[in-house]
């Protein structure tokens, strides 16, 4: 085995020789090569990810496990994580996206949790292209086909279009599950003498070395990479869920790990290393789907729907009995040792013998960073092109454009209600789910602001994070933690590494200031093709808790006669806003500078507004600015809105600027005094009333509600 085709650099190969004090054999070279790949090792980002705040009063399990776990109270934990499946989805949209859903669900199972909700972040290319239509159709169908069959509701998500994703679409799959705290599982609790058991599908040649595939740029050869794409079987996954839940319920599992990237190799080596053990695996005991597979193919296969269980020997019989009940394959393939060695045997012969640390403690790479030469061009903004001559037409364009319109065409293809716990599903800016058997609710927001991250990665990422928090604060939720998926171009180019480094810094600073621990995540690099790179795309999912779900302040619930307020500044920034991109064709200009003190003042008041029940509806100002927030509120509340603002701010700035701690509220007349009292010490402006059947803005426009609805739901006006 040539070490270079195993993905190892000269210096990495030299290091392996030093660590082993000998030359690795070809199988060993392959095994180390995959574990040291970017996808498995996070070698380019490990150092940066350590800067995230990891502690918080609700954190039960932070980064380093299959998923993070936060405390929901009353004995319930909530395991959650987001993961990319970008490269597979670019090459085989249906299967790539489907197996993305399946893969993240197994991460949740591995924490002992029943997968309870999913969400998806989708980034598609130029919406006018047939290519985008085909890719998005396949991806959405793949997510639906898998998620619907496996019975995990898709309660929300984010869909974003930009030409930068035309050749490199992104699929970020989020899943989460509730777990009784006394049933939590771990990949760190195996001990000597325990048996390694494979549960689920047989191992085949599908998805071999997918991890290395995901660790380089997509090129024309990628289409020849189809064998590296896995094929999903949601039926098998559903059985796997039920079987694992049963096994955990009966306390039959000592430790467990899902099989994702680098399959048997990564799952077994991680369990051995994290548990401080060694492991001996016998190749011929691994059930195979096809004949003649070489050991390296078996170890690197990414066949789907498999779990690695660590079982105490005296519990083997009931484990096999339950597997048989569900019709699942089950086989003992190895044993935990105290050798700290990762040993592979084939017909009695030792064919690989590595210290577990060489597979677990992977090296770091420090890439140089340099501010992009074109950063001035990215932040330059020409106000003369931005004048809003016809505000009504601009508003209708903003709510009907692909990024602004209703995504029901996508989410109606997903089962959002199965499992009977969805309180607010797709279409709402905040997803709300019942915590089992309690009065509590779990709230989730998913955000990404690629345009803002392109023009200023630090400020864009800060705004992304703050936006996800504001949605939860307005709902009245306490922040539990966040998970993030970092989609970036190659780290090897200093200008691209800069984007990655600055975005992580933006997320880390915001999370630290605003008390949001980071509990899990995933990094996807090399998102670029011959036609260019993607915009920096950090996606965040933040989880919040409402101890009493009746205190939830929803959006789209404005009542006739309510007074409308805007809290926060009347004006944000047009830089990289939806309006600016619509007018100029590409993002330019900076978003607002993060102001964490202001966010804290906003947080305190927003949470009190919800807790005291003084508003009937609340909504963060996001894409499209105040005008679009009000239009969305009118549409979802099915009520007219009448606005009058006396201000010298330029029309486009007032209507469409974005960023900063800002929200609109609808407040019943009799509660207006209490509302205003809560917001003392923070900009708070009464701007109008709810009622009628028009969205009317004095001296600006008057649009029929029916016309707004049509623009939003049908994407034309």
């Amino acid at each position, binding site marked *: 085995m040539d070490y270079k085709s195993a993905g190892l650099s000269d210096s990495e190969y030299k290091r392996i020789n030093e660590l082993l004090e000998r030359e690795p054999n070809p199988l060993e070279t392959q095994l180390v090569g995959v574990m040291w790949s970017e996808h498995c090792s996070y070698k380019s980002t490990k150092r940066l990810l350590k800067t995230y705040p990891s502690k918080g009063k609700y954190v039960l399990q932070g980064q380093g496990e299959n998923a993070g776990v936060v405390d929901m109270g009353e004995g319930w934990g909530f395991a959650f994580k987001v993961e990319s499946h970008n490269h597979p989805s670019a090459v085989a949209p249906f299967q790539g996206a489907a197996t993305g859903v399946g893969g993240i669900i197994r991460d949740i199972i591995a924490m002992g949790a029943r997968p309870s909700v999913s969400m998806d972040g989708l980034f598609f290319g130029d919406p006018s292209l047939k290519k985008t239509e085909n890719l998005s159709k396949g991806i959405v169908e793949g997510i639906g086909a898998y998620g619907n*069959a496996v019975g995990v509701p898709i309660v929300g998500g984010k869909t974003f279009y930009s030409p930068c994703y035309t050749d490199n679409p992104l699929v970020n799959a989020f899943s989460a599950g509730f777990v009784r705290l006394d049933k939590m599982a771990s990949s760190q609790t195996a001990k000597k003498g325990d048996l390694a058991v494979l549960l689920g599908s047989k191992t085949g040649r599908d998805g071999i070395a997918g991890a290395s595939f995901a660790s380089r740029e997509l090129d024309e050869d990628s289409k020849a990479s189809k064998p590296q794409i896995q094929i999903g079987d949601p*039926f098998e996954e559903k059985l796997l869920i039920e079987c694992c839940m049963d096994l955990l319920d009966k306390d039959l599992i000592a430790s467990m790990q899902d099989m994702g990237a680098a399959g048997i190799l990564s799952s077994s080596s991680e369990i051995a290393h994290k548990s401080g053990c060694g492991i001996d695996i016998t190749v011929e005991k691994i059930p195979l789907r096809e004949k003649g597979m070489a050991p390296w193919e078996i170890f690197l296969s990414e066949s789907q729907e498999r779990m690695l269980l660590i079982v105490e020997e005296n519990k083997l019989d009931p484990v096999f009995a339950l597997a048989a009940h569900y019709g699942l394959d089950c086989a003992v393939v190895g044993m935990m040792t105290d050798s700290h060695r990762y040993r592979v045997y084939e017909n009695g012969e030792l064919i690989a013998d590595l210290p577990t640390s060489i597979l677990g403690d992977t090296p770091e790479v420090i890439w140089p960073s340099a501010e992009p030469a074109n950063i001035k061009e990215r932040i330059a903004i020409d106000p003369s092109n931005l004048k809003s001559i016809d505000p009504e037409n601009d508003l209708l364009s903003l709510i009907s454009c692909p990024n602004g319109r209703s995504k029901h065409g996508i989410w*109606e293809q997903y089962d959002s*209600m*199965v499992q*009977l716990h*969805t*309180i607010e599903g797709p279409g709402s800016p905040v997803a709300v789910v019942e915590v089992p058997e309690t009065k509590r609710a779990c709230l989730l927001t998913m955000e990404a602001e690629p345009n803002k991250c392109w023009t200023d990665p630090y400020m864009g990422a800060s705004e992304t994070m703050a936006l996800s928090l504001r949605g939860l604060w307005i709902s009245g939720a306490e922040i539990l933690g966040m998970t993030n998926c970092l989609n970036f171009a190659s780290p090897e180019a200093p200008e691209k590494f800069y984007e990655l480094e600055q975005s992580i810094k933006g997320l880390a600073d915001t999370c630290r200031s605003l008390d949001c621990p980071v509990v899990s995540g995933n990094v996807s690099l090399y998102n670029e093709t011959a036609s260019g790179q993607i915009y920096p795309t950090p996606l965040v999912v933040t989880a919040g808790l409402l101890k009493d779900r009746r205190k939830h302040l929803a959006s789209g619930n404005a009542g006739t006669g309510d007074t409308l307020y805007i809290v926060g500044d009347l004006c944000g920034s047009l830089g990289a806003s939806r309006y600016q991109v619509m007018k100029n064709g590409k993002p330019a200009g900076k978003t607002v500078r993060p102001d964490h003190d202001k966010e804290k003042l906003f947080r305190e008041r927003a949470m009190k507004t919800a807790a005291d029940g003084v508003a009937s509806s609340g909504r963060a100002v996001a894409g499209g600015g105040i005008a679009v927030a009000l239009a969305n509120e009118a549409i979802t509340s099915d009520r007219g809105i009448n606005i009058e603002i006396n201000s010298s701010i330029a029309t486009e700035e007032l209507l469409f600027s974005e960023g900063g701690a800002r929200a609109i509220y609808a407040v019943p007349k009799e509660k207006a005094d209490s509302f205003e009292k809560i917001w003392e010490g923070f900009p708070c402006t009464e701007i109008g009333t709810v009622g009628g059947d028009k969205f009317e803005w004095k001296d600006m426009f008057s649009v029929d509600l029916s016309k707004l609805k049509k623009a939003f739901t049908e994407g034309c006006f």
Partner: protein
Amino acid sequence: MKTAVVVFPGSNCDRDVQRAVSESMKTAVDMVWHEEENFSGQPDLVILPGGFSYGDYLRSGAMAARSPIIKAVKEHAARGGLVLGICNGFQILTETKMLPGALLPNTSLTFICSRCWVRVEQTDNKFTYGLKKGEVLQFPIAHHEGLFFLPDDDLKKLEDAGRVVFRYADPDTGKAGAEYAPNGALNGIAGICSEKGNILGLMPHPERATIPHLNGGTDGIRFWDSIAKAFKERGAC
């Protein structure tokens, strides 16, 4: 009233319907694995839940219709016991021939999950006995194969026999028919019953309109109440 929910491999609304029935009808609900050959104890109501039994591979409901428990379900129905098939359960009932027809892919060729309204077409059966003929209920749908199909002659017979129980409808006007079917179902048929009225299959999910604080509405409660009323006033058989 005793209820049993059959769990097939790939069922995914089994626990939902268990919760909905036990919370609204305040009864214990047995979960019965498809490999059983008999129900333990005598249930009054057997529910075949929604989901993707056997992954819906081959054809929705086709493999589940061959499960060991089906013989006991048929015997239960033959005794006059109540059998309710929801979504995939309806598909299974047509595959077992306990109900006529077939559920074909939606005309959109996509999965559809949304709110949906159905009109009660008749109340002379064990399920809608307590509802009013002509009233419109909101039950969510979530399916890929929901286009109810029968050849013309058989469809006419079914209609003439008054066995159409639910039809897709407009909530504002109360009109019902094919034009309100989200899936292309012939005559807008959402649910049908057996000759004796003790077997009901429907595509929409009443269990998703049962828990008041969730997003599916509450019309399902009226449906479960109606079954309980029929059982109390008219008995199981």
